[in-house]
Each structure stands twice: as C-alpha cells, then as structure tokens.
C-alpha cells in the first residue's frame, strides 16, 4: 500500500472512500461527460456549420443563431435565411459531428429509416447514424439535445426540492418544538401581518404570477423578485406596533412555536399523496410547459430531503461545538448556515442523487405519454414514444430507452456511492 496522507476530517474521509469505489467514480466522470454533452449540444448536432467560409466571407452560423435568439433581431438575410447549409457551396466549413438539428425533418429519409438501412444522403458525413423516426427527425441529434432537457429537468427540479427540503428540515430539526419563542405581542401583530403580506405580495398578483409561470423560469423569478419584498415589507410594517405592546407584561409573555410538529405533519401529508399521479394530473390539466413540469416535480418531492435534514439536524444540534457556538452568542441563522448545515449536508447529497434519477424518470414518463411537455420539444421520452407509431423500428425502441436507463443508473450509482462513502459502519471494515 502506498503511503498516503491520512486525513481525519469526515468529509475528506468520505471523499477518500468514494474514490476507492471504482464504479461510483466512473459514474461521476460519466456524468461529467453528459453535462459536457448537454452544454455543447449545439456544437455536436446542428444543421449549420460551426464556422464556414461562404463566398470568401467567414461566418460563424451557430453563434449568429445564438445572437439572434438573444437579441431577437434577425441575423440572416437573402438566400442564407432559408438555405440548407448542407447543399450550400461553401469554400470550407467546420461542421458539428452530426449535421442535423433535433427538430429538423429529413423528408427523404422519412418514414423511419434504420441505422443500417440504405439512406438517401449526399455523403457519409450526413448519415443518420442512429436512424430517423417516422417524420424524419435524426435520432442521434434528438438524443444529444435530449441530454440537455433530461439533465436540466433533473437538476432544476431537485434544486427546487432541495431548497424546500433543506430549509424546512433544518428548521424542524434545529428548533424542535421548544426552542423558538416569540412574544404574544409579536404573534398578535405578526399573523395578521403575514396574512396581509401574502395578500398584497401574492394573492393580488396571482394572475400575473400564474402567467409568468407558464411563460418561463426567469419571467417568473423576476415577478417573484417583486412579490417577496412586498410581502416582507407589509408583514414587517404591520408587525412593528407589537414593539409597543411588548412592553406590557401581558404582551411580553413568550410563546413557543411548534416548528417541528407543524413541519412533520406537513411532511406526513405530502407523503400520503400519490406524487407521480399528482404530477401526471397537474401536467395533464395545465398548459404544457417544461418549467411547470420541473416545478411540479420539485414541489412534490422534497419530503425525503426534509426528513434526512431534520434527522441530521436533531443529531448535530446536540453536539458540543453547536453548544459552544450558542454560548458564544452567535445568531441562530449563523449557527444553522455556517456551522450546522455543512455537517448535516452529506446524507442530503444521497437524496439529491436519487432524486435526480427519479425526476428524470418521471419527466421521460410524462413526455413518453405526451403530457405536460410541449409537443415540439424533443426529449428522450418523446423519442421513445415514437417507437409506438413505427412498429418495425427497433432503433427507436432501443436507443432513447437506453439513454434514459444509463442516466438513471448513473445517478443511482452515484447515490449509492455517496451513501456507502459516508456510512461510518462500512468504513470500519
């Protein structure tokens, strides 16, 4: 055995253990590759070259399309606007490896041409390596761009559920039922304040917020950026007079907030919902939107993370160093954020990995059925669904499903790997 520096910090030890797990390490690297594919999807499969010289002029078509998408100003004029770049007479060009966009229809290879079938193409570079579907979409291009959708669904929805889960779980675990106290006066003014804050911040603005939600993530975030301060400001304004009432002995009487019981009940109720069915139902009723799918998955799957976080917090808050931090007079927020959370985070990572796997699974299930996701969006699920309308096309049944399977397995392996790495029982072997 080689002499390695022995580190005693739990995090370093867990990382060490994780690195020894070859499979998990491989899964981590593979995930990195997938992230790269997702980020560079346009440079891997696109129907225009990355850079080309046309009539002596050097053009960067993909970047131009980006610029057009960003500014909304049309960048193409004349024949280039509608041209099929593959037949254009270019002086020279550097193409993406796949010369098709996922939404593009290749009508000459239309009703489902297989990877080994004869394809009507001009050169080998234009081959549909994994075949086409009934309408002539290139399968490989769809898979490459689908990576982007699957990973972002996984990351964003789990990001949402992690935020909610960590927040609620940490509150419940750290405060319990007999730590957080408020004066009677604060409660008397604070509750109506909260009601009014929610009324002005969210209820009156519900139409605008709802429309923004189906429009896109950033529009929604922008409006939320208005709603939250309004709600907070109103709440504080109404609460302020309580400072006066607090001076009386009646108003100063401290009351305990049942943080843990409330949050635990909430978790119990969420658990007793059939989450997948709920997601299907909402997706079927609302206007199709990818962000809505992510939001709904995120909003319904935070319970696991919250439970883990709560359990860890219960453990952590008993530890000496937290007591020491309290004795030093640090604020609760500082103790939770700086001292307790980092140590309670590891088990949550396990939930996050599994959560990404199941979010990807749910999304591909939805787009397999054709609900919730806009019909023009090409996803792994929708590609797999196209196998149902092209019975002889084995490639449509095999490859998209394989992609889903591989990604789900990767995240499951990652989850197991992290779990094994942080489990002290396993480390003692």
């Amino acid at each position: 055995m080689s002499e390695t520096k022995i580190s005693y910090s739990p995090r370093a030890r867990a990382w060490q253990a994780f690195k020894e797990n070859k499979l998990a390490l491989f899964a981590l690297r593979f995930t990195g590759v997938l992230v790269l594919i997702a980020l560079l999807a346009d440079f891997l499969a696109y129907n225009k070259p990355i850079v080309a010289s046309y009539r002596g002029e050097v053009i960067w078509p993909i970047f131009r399309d980006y610029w057009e998408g960003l500014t909304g100003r049309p960048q193409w004029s004349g024949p280039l606007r509608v041209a099929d770049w593959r037949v254009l007479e270019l002086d020279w060009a550097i193409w993406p490896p796949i010369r098709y966009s996922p939404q593009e229809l290749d009508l000459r290879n239309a009703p489902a041409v297989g990877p080994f079938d004869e394809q009507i193409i001009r050169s080998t570079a234009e081959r549909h390596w994994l075949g086409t579907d009934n309408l002539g979409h290139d399968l490989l291009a769809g898979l490459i761009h689908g990576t982007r959708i699957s990973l972002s669904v996984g990351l964003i929805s789990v990001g949402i559920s992690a935020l909610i889960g960590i927040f609620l779980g940490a509150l419940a675990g750290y405060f319990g039922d007999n730590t957080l106290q408020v004066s009677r006066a604060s409660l008397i003014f604070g509750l109506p304040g909260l009601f009014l804050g929610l009324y002005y911040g969210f209820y009156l603005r519900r139409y605008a917020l709802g429309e923004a939600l189906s429009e896109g993530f950033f529009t929604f975030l922008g409006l939320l950026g208005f709603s939250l301060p309004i709600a907070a400001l109103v709440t504080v304004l109404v609460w302020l007079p309580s400072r006066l009432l607090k001076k009386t002995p009646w108003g100063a009487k401290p009351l305990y907030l049942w943080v843990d019981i409330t949050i635990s009940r909430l978790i119990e109720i969420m658990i007793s919902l059939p989450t997948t069915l709920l997601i299907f139902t909402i997706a079927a009723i609302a206007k199709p939107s990818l962000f809505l799918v992510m939001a709904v998955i995120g909003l319904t799957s935070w319970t696991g993370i919250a439970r883990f976080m709560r359990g860890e917090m219960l453990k952590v808050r008993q530890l000496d160093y937290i007591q020491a931090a309290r004795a030093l007079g640090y604020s609760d927020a500082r103790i939770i954020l700086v001292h307790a959370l980092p140590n309670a985070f590891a088990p949550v990572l396990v939930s996050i990995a599994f959560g990404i796997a199941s979010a990807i699974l749910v999304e591909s299930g939805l787009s397999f059925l054709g609900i919730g996701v806009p019909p023009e969006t090409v996803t792994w699920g929708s590609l797999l669904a196209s196998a149902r309308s092209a019975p002889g096309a084995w490639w449509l049944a095999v490859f998209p499903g394989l992609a889903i399977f591989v990604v789900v397995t990767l995240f499951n392996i990652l989850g197991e790997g992290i779990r094994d790495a942080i489990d002290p029982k396993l480390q003692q072997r």
Partner: protein
Amino acid sequence: MTAYLIRRILFFIPTLLLITLLSFIISQSAPGDPVEQMLSGQQSGGEQLAERQANEAAYLQKRKDLGLDLPVFYFSIGPLAEPDTLYKIPKVPVQDALRRLVYKFGNWEAVSRYYQALRRLEEAFYASAGDSAWKGDNRTEARALLVLLPQEKNYDEILHKLGLLERYLIPALRPAYEEVVSAVKALPQEATPWKIYIPVIHWYGTQNQYHRWLMGLLQGDFGISYQDKRPITSKLGDAVRWSIVINLISILLAYLIAIPLGVQSAVRRGQWPDRVISVTLFMLYSLPTFWVGTMAIVFLCGGDYLSIFPPGGVQSTEHSPDWPFFKRLWDWTYHLVLPVLVYTYGSLAFLSRQMRSALLEVLGQDYVRTARAKGLSQRLVIWKHAFRNSLIPIITLLASVFPSMISGSVILESIFSIPGMGFLSYGAMIARDYPVIIAVFTIGAILTLVGILVADILYAVVDPRISYGRR
C-alpha cells in the same frame, strides 16, 4: 395500541379532506367551460336571436344542474372592490375577465356597467340578423369580435377590439356601440384603486360547489365524463377490476420472489450469488418500465420481429363468455403474462433490495449472535430468529409499492392497452376529459391513504417492540 390506532384513524380524516381539497383545486384550474363541454354537440349555431336565447337558457339550466351557479368554496377572500356575487355571472372566462378588470380599476359599478352595455349590444346585434344593411363578411367579422370581447382581460386589447368592431357595425347598432365605448372610457376615469387594497372575507355557507362535490364523492358520485356523458363511477367500475387484478397478482409475485432472493443475498453477503443478485437487481431497479414495455411490444408482440405474445389487450377478439372456464382463463393468462412481468420486476427489485438490507441489519443484532453462540444451526438462526423481524419493514413497504403501482399503471396500461384505470386516465388526459382525470387522481389518493393506514396498523400489530404511547 388501541389509542394509537384511534389517533391514526383520526389523522386519516383531515388528510383525506385535504386531499379532496387539492383535487378540487386542481379541477378548478382546468381550462375551458365545463357547461359548454357537457352541452357540446347539442347546441345549434345561434345566428338568430330566438335560437341564441334558447341556447342561453339551456346553458343556464345545465349550469344550475351541475351546481356551477354556486359559489366555489365556503368562503372567499378578495378585495373590497370585488363583489361577493361575481360567481353568478355565467361563463367562467367572462367571470375571469371581469374580475381582472375589477382588480385593475377597483370599481365594480363601472365594470358592471361595461358588462351590461356589452350584453345590450350583443342582444341588439343578434336581433339585427335580418337587417339588409349588413354587407359582405361584416356580420361574421363583427360576430367573432363580439364573442371574444366579453372574455378579453386586457384593457388595451378591449379598446383595440372595439376599434375594429366599429368598422363592421351597421348604423342601427351605433347607439348600443357608443354606450359600450363610453362605459369602457369611463373605467380609468372612475377608477377607485384604494378599494383593491382592502381585503374582505365573504362567507357563503354550505351552498357551494366544493361541498356539493364532496358530498357526491362520499356517495361514490364522481360526476359525468365529458367524452361520452356517462357517469364516471360506472366507467371506473369496469376499469378498476382490471387494475386491481393485475396489481394484486404483481404485488403477490413480487413479494414471493423478492423475499427469498433478498434472504439469499443477505445470508451470502459478499459471495458471488450476492454479487450477481445485487447487480441484476440494481439494473432492474433502474430500468424504466415504459422502456421495457415498449421493447416488449416492439420485439415480442407480433410487430416485425417475434410474435410470442399478443399485441395488447386483456383478451382475444373472439373471446366470449360462452367459452368453457379454463379456455377463458387461458386466454386471459396468455394476454396478461407480459404486462404482469413488466409490472412486477420494478417492485421486485425494490423489495428484495430492502429485504436484503433489513435482514443484514437484523443479522448484526446481539440476539442473533446469542442464537449462534447457543449452537443453533444456520438455518434455524436465519429463519426462526432473524427472518421474522426483518419482515417488518417489508410489510410496511406495501404502503409505498401500492401507490407507485397505481401511477405506474397509467403508463403500462396505455402501452399494453389494458382497459384499466390507468388506461382510462390516459385516454382522459389526451381527450382533456378533466372530470375523469380528477376522479382517477382522487381515487388513487384515497387508495394510497388507505394503503398507508393499513401498513401502519399492520406495523403496530406485528411489531410489539414499538410503543405507541404519547411521546
């Protein structure tokens, strides 16, 4: 323990109410007008005034029958500017548009005046059907605008549409039109925005849509399907049978296979059988069922490849009740083998992985070591001492396997065209038959809730170690 059970059941009731509330909220946000959905195909064009009035009467009657003329909930919260009788206005999009105008200008009287003026213009328009002053397509154009106007939420858009309308109208309709325009112009002038900022709570009592829906639900009435106008309960009745049969067989199979597998795997921990079982189960666990299902259909069910199994459905087309019992049973079995296999493997993998870790946990306990130290045989130690206790968490998993099967059946039943609840729900999702979607969700949620309750009770009955006294 009795006290625990009672408390557990008491918790069941508010949760159930919350779930019905959630279903109701989701159903409320369904787009479109339920009354129009119900009347679809029954209404005539409505070019003439008389025809139109008949249509409207039919609409109002249907709305009353469905209870949609009632307030939505026991109470409502809204700005002072919003009247507590807004729900009485027929057509949900119109209601919505008026509410938004109130939210913008804070003056219900002015908004109401605009609405009344618009109604008078409509009436005058339909009364003028025979007027020879109409030229070309003008009437059609005007009609299209008049249909859209009451549903328009955006003030500028209203002005724009009114401007367009002016070009098409005949002189006879001029006064009515001017009235609408002046009412619209008055909106910003008479705006009382302060009324928006005062929240008011209105109490409506039990005469409301939710109460009516809940009472129906308790009597097993889920409303009427948009598609074929049949009561949903009878539609679901046929479907539920297939779902339950398939799910029960699969759960049973999964448990029967998973438990011995998990035990073997735990007992031979680290040896090759454990490795093989673990890896296989891990792969199975990550295999999306809809992929396996699609592959099975494409490769095994008579497409261009093998044709070992039938291409879906639960019985062959010539199947008849006159067949001898065993022939029918064989027919069903032949059709269900593949779906049941696909149904089973997912929960099988999950269950045996759980079984393995539960048994491993128990095998590490002191009393197992004691049993071994006493010189008991390996067989006795495992089956008599360890196995029983490791079963407890597996039993409670029933609570999570069951609901996932219900939602899983939406995908699987649609792949294999099994006429069960999931297939029905999928059909409803495609056809936008909202009452059916909501009914399936509500039933699924109630079944889940009952599953969890049963698992909790089983847990309490099986495991004497756990005390359920007050903490």
